[in-house]
């Protein structure tokens, strides 16, 4: 089949369009003027201001801890559930499965509000704990869906063969299933991490005295006068993301390529299934 140029052109154009807003945010981070609608010449003053802002560093640390804790908890809960669910002898599996995905389907604002009141009701102290619980609730479905989707694609004969050879359930899980679903877990964790790192609406309600997160900081600053300091912050975050992505791509190149490819398609089908709710 002859290759047409139209697909590549289309892909390139759309991708460029996706990055234009981000690019503009980056450009305006070098704007000397405090008012965002006026261009006052190039300057690094907002980066200087940013580094002087001690709260931002705290918020950054909090966010990273939170995203790590909640995406890892989600990984444990989600993976165990996805592996065990098909064979578990418990009632209401379908309902629990449906309910566990609700946190990504109902409006965040209402979820935040009920969490606030509910946590107060069960006397959970507001702070990192409440934040982690709330974030885990919307991180778990991503991991669960991705792993579940991956498990469906795995040839069951491996596990059966292993069992016939006398392997225990644990051996099968550890030596066969886990390596096969690891890419799905990884991408689930990455997605969950990103979601946690971007959450504002729920966090506003369940955060405590001392636990500002970075998105909260960005949100409140955006609300009270956009200074290019926020642009500067986002530019740095963007740069860091790029760096991590490039580095991981570089490392991945050195390791098995096939696994990498699987991650990508896993991500795609996982996001789809997260609401598609394969039952």
């Amino acid at each position, binding site marked *: 089949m002859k290759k047409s140029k139209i697909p590549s052109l289309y892909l390139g154009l759309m991708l460029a369009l996706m990055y234009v807003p981000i690019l503009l945010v980056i450009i305006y981070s070098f704007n000397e003027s405090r008012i965002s609608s006026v261009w006052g010449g190039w300057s690094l003053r907002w980066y200087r201001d940013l580094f002087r802002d001690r709260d931002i560093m705290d918020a950054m640390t909090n966010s990273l801890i939170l995203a790590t804790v909640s995406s890892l908890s989600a990984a444990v809960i989600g993976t165990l559930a996805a592996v065990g669910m098909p064979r578990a002898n418990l009632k209401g599996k379908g309902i629990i499965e449906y309910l566990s995905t609700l946190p990504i389907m109902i409006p965040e604002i209402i979820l935040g509000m009920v969490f606030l009141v509910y946590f107060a009701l069960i006397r959970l102290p507001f702070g990192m704990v409440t934040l982690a619980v709330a974030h885990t609730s919307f991180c778990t479905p991503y991991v669960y869906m991705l792993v579940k989707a991956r498990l469906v694609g795995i040839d069951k004969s491996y596990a059966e063969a292993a069992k016939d050879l006398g392997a*225990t359930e644990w051996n099968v899980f550890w030596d066969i299933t886990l390596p096969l679903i690891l890419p799905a877990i990884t991408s689930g964790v990455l997605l969950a991490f990103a979601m946690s790192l*971007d959450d504002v609406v729920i966090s506003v309600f369940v955060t405590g005295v001392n636990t500002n997160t970075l998105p909260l900081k960005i949100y409140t600053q955006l609300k009270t006068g956009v200074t290019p300091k926020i642009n500067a912050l986002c530019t740095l975050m963007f740069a860091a993301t790029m760096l991590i992505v490039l580095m991981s791509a570089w490392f991945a190149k050195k390791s098995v390529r096939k696994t990498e490819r699987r991650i990508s*398609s896993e991500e795609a089908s996982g996001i789809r299934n997260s609401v598609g709710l394969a039952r």
Partner: protein
Amino acid sequence: MSAEIKAGPTEASDPGGVPQKRKAALRRFFDAATISVMPIYAFTLLFVVGPLVYMFILSFLKRAETWGVLREFTWSNYTNILKPVYLKTFYESLKLAFFTTFFVALVGYPFGYFMARLSATWKRRMMLLLMIPFWTSSLIRLYGWIIIFRANGTLDKILMGLGITQAPLKLLYTYSAVVVGMIYALVPFMIFAVYSSAEKLDWQLVEAARDLGATPWQAFITVSFRLTLPGLLSGVVLTFIPSMGLFFIADILGGNKVILVGNLIQEQLMKARNWPFAAALSVVLMILTSIMIALYRKVSGVKDLEGLV
């Protein structure tokens, strides 16, 4: 040892005396699979069902005079939704969601489809390029659109510089701006969905159709499109559902003039202090969402969805 941990089905065939039965029941309880789902059971019951039950109860309570709720039962929060202005809000939300979904499909389908035909290396690169924006704050990305749309902003400057327009277009705070913002925020989901189904497509089928004399267009419709339809459908669901609740896009790019159910819930909570009404709105929204998903399952068929992976 291997016999001991075999799961349910095999146990049924075990010869069954009374002691064995008890043992089997015990074993079932301590079964590996059962234990491994305990965390999600506990978490879901404690931290998802609990709050949701609370929300459901709340939607039947009366609001207090100034703040909080009274413990009195009422239907009024639900009958309140039937007032023309609130029904209209639901209608407007649905309308915008349809608009958004339509355009997202229009833009995202070819993207996902073309992407699936790239080489493995480029597929990986594209996937990374699509994921990166996910890692930057979604609010900030919207702010980028303000820079583009505002009076004498980037777009105005380009158009006026080229002599296409003479005066600022006043694009910010319009319905179109909201639609663009929604498409921008949601198109990746469509791309991922279409891509993952197109990637599994057997291109030999398309070629076979061509060999049998089909035009490229016919081959696409009869083979590719039909086989990627489940992906498109799940993309539709993935776009449609969040677009009902995304309130900050309508706020930021629409100048607060496009009110969606999400905005209404937010206002009821934060400004009108009417929590029960907000809860009732959320319950209705949740029901609508669930209907959408059920409909999707019916149309696409669960098997298709699983077969894709």
